């Protein structure tokens, strides 16, 4: 019997992409998108930058207007899934109703790792995950004079750049010894450290958060792990996320730092797929190790792949990961995964804030980080997506140019 219905849990990039791609692929059955947030599905990346700065409005963040879902017969259900009944292929909703599924897609995403120090429940303390978070935060960042950011990852630094641009004094606490240490090379970290310092952001590396102090229920200061007290009317944290695996766990699906899926993005139940931030998949760019990636590209490409499989066009997931972050005047674009990189070649000029870092593991090019060199990023994605591989020696030659190399080595 052919597939008659697909229920998708979660309406972020991955969930919405499955619905859109299913219709583009010609699927005629029922599509239900279960969204536990109010309003139409929207894109999260602007929440910590363009939307917070007021550069774009809420409509510009929507994936699609309301009419699109109606026209495409994509049912939007505002509810939460309470449980998965695998035996009867049915999900139970908080409202008490239930949805039968031919196939279920878990696109449940992740939630912010919470602060767990005394004072964490004071007001004026924010993670940034939803539009509601950004709407509460937006007026406060314009007023705040002293802002403390916990964590120097993408989200924390995007926000730090916004707060500094709004005129606040910004202190960043980071347990590691450089910005974005998990994600980028030391050379790229250094460029961003210098840029943020130029905007007035103060870094406190190897420094944790000990306590949050408040007055009248509102945060007023931060105590660092080395005993210093920093005034703060506003605290924003970005200290990683935790995949939303609870539903899958309770349903007995295999979990391994996320919902475990195979190279087709199927869970341990052949009637259930998982994708995006919540899915741990065998990643070809990471030696087939189970990997969980938190990015738009990963969610979108995995959504397309699942939709294609559901209409009878299965392929293994091999898409090249890429990422971006906008901080102040800096646009960082990353192609590939730099896990295990041990050799770096740089192009451009860090002092001019135009730098590409080619990341090698041994002789193998595994990632390219480009700051304000978007042309390099485009070529990096082409070069990394197929052989022949660029060697460190070739890249280190004087006058080396990615574009020329790509043209000369095109298959």
């Amino acid at each position, binding site marked *: 019997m052919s597939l008659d219905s697909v229920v998708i849990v979660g309406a972020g990039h991955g969930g919405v992409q499955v619905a859109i791609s299913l219709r583009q692929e010609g699927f005629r059955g029922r599509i239900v998108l279960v969204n536990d947030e109010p309003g139409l599905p929207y894109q999260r*990346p*602007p929440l910590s930058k363009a939307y917070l700065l007021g550069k774009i409005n809420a409509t510009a963040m929507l*994936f699609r207007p309301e009419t699109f879902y109606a026209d495409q017969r994509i049912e939007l259900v505002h509810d939460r899934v309470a449980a998965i009944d695998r035996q009867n292929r049915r999900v139970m909703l908080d409202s008490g109703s239930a949805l039968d599924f031919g196939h279920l897609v878990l696109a449940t995403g992740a939630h912010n790792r919470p602060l767990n120090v005394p004072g964490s429940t004071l007001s004026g303390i924010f993670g940034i995950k939803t539009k509601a978070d950004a709407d509460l935060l937006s007026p406060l960042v314009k007023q705040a004079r002293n802002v403390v950011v916990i964590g120097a990852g993408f989200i924390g630094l995007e926000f730090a750049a916004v707060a500094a641009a709004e005129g606040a004094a910004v202190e960043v606490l980071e347990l590691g010894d450089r910005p974005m240490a998990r994600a980028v090379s030391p050379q790229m970290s250094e460029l961003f450290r210098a840029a943020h310092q130029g905007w007035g952001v103060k870094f406190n590396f190897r420094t944790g958060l000990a306590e949050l102090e408040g007055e009248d229920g509102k945060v007023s200061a931060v105590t660092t792990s080395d005993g210093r007290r920093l005034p703060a009317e506003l605290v924003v944290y970005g200290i990683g996320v935790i995949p939303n695996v609870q539903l899958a766990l309770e349903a007995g699906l295999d979990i391994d730092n996320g919902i475990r899926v195979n190279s087709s993005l199927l869970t341990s139940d052949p009637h259930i797929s998982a994708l995006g931030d919540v899915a741990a998949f065998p990643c070809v760019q990471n030696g087939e190790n189970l990997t969980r990636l938190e990015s738009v*590209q990963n969610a979108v490409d995995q959504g397309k792949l699942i939709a294609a499989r559901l209409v009878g066009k299965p392929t293994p997931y091999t898409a090249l990961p890429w990422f*971006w972050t906008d901080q102040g005047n800096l646009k960082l674009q990353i192609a590939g995964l730099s896990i295990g990189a041990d050799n770096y070649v740089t192009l451009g000029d860090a002092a001019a804030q135009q730098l590409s870092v080619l990341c090698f593991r041994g002789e193998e090019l595994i990632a390219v980080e480009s700051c304000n060199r978007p042309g390099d990023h*485009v070529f990096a994605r082409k070069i990394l997506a197929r052989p022949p591989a660029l060697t460190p020696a070739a890249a280190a030659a004087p006058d080396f140019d990615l574009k020329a190399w790509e043209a000369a080595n095109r298959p």
Partner: protein
Amino acid sequence: MPTITFIEHNGTRHEVHAEVGQSAMQAATFAGVPGIPGDCGGACACASCHAYVDEAWVERFAPAEGTEYDMLENVVERQPTSRLTCQLVVGADMDGLTLRLPAAQF
């Protein structure tokens, strides 16, 4: 509400009603035009909204610069009229704008 025509590489035409102030990319994605994924949502980060502006309309837009220019230099099938449509803001006087899509994005 200006109407923009998107023409897919295979000749399929899509007449799209755009909002003034919206980007041409968003007008296309909102209408479900195939061939413009616009994956990054208009952040000028992914180069997946490449299109060719009809000759008659090229001069109506400020030329590509900065990030858009650099990415365009390197997309497939670059032409003098190439633009990233996330950077084209729809004006009230743009009724009839025609954008043609390349065979493949990126």
